[in-house]
């Protein structure tokens, strides 16, 4: 009995030492996964996921505190990319966080704008130009469509305008395979 105990204790001790040493030797600094996740997120910084930006959401996913389906701007493809990266099953988007919308940009109705600068402070990417008491305007190419400027506006002069399909952003459609629609 005594030998058995000793043997097991010895084994455990030995393994403990090896593991302890390797844990020190191979210590992981920082979290490279966060950046990988952040690279997939659309960087709208819209906060629809419930986190105050894309990076915090990425951090939360990396630590298993948030699900991969909370990003409506990233939509289905974004969720799939995350599922792929993390090796988990894809799941439908969480409707509580919002639903994917066609990509839009904010447009300020300029004759209504009172120049309060509230939207400028709300914009996470500094895409709104203007000064106090001056009319503001949105730099369309920089706007991420996060809608964060909508609530602060006291006169509701900002609207989201979907980006129309033009010759230069037009995409080829998925070919329709007719065989499935062919009745017997």
């Amino acid at each position, binding site marked *: 009995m005594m*030998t*058995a105990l000793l*043997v*097991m204790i010895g*084994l*455990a001790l030995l*393994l403990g030492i*090896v*593991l302890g040493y*390797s*844990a020190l030797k*191979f*210590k*992981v600094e920082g*979290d*490279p*996964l966060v950046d*990988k996740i952040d690279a997939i997120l659309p960087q709208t910084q819209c906060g629809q996921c419930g986190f105050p930006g894309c990076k915090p959401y990425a951090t939360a996913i990396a630590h298993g505190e948030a699900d991969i389906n909370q990003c409506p701007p990233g939509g289905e493809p974004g969720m799939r990319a995350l599922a*792929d*990266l*993390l*090796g*988990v099953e894809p799941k439908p988007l969480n409707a509580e966080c919002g639903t994917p919308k066609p990509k839009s940009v904010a447009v300020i109705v300029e004759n209504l704008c009172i120049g309060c600068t509230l939207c400028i402070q709300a914009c996470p990417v500094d895409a709104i130009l203007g000064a106090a008491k001056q009319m503001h305007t949105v730099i369309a190419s920089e706007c991420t469509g996060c809608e964060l400027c909508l609530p602060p506006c006291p006169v509701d002069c900002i609207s989201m305008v979907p980006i129309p399909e033009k010759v230069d952003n037009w995409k080829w459609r998925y070919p329709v395979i007719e065989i499935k629609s062919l009745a017997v």
Partner: protein
Amino acid sequence: MLESYILILLGTVFVNNIVLVKILGLCPFMGVSKKLEASIGMGAATTFVLTIGSGSSYLINQYLLGPDLFYLRTLSFIVVIAGIVQFTEIVVEKTSPVLYQLLGIYLPLITTNCAVLGIPLLNVQGNHNFMQSLLFGFGGSVGFSLVLVLFASMRERMEAADVPGPFKGSAIAMVTAGLMSLAFMGFAGLIR
């Protein structure tokens, strides 16, 4: 001598493939075969654990336990394997965070992979010497890795197949594993 070693190796890889013939280690076989990359990592990790585990189990069984403490066999094997798995996990996390994430729960679960415990126990049963044990462990894990990687490559291709709804995912993977096992039966009798 060399010939017998080669036969042990070939025998464990193909004829007595641990997954498809002995039907051991199915949990990671089904779990980590969705992506080729992950399956290669899993194969490498398992090969490492199994080879070292098989060798050290032999040493423990032979020199530490002996015939008196045979009842500690399973227990001590599990302890040793768990230690090696832990070590592998630490190394993988350091060297490849993405692989670490991809392997997920299956990495620590190598501990409970029945193949990993099965091989040391089969070693004892077969009265293998140290070299044979090492080769048996290595061959077994190479066989495991081989079919895992082949299976993963097949599953990646099947991803785009028009599989009927109820059979999508794990169900068709099971069917495929079965058919692979069927194919591996062709090796029967090649080497005892």
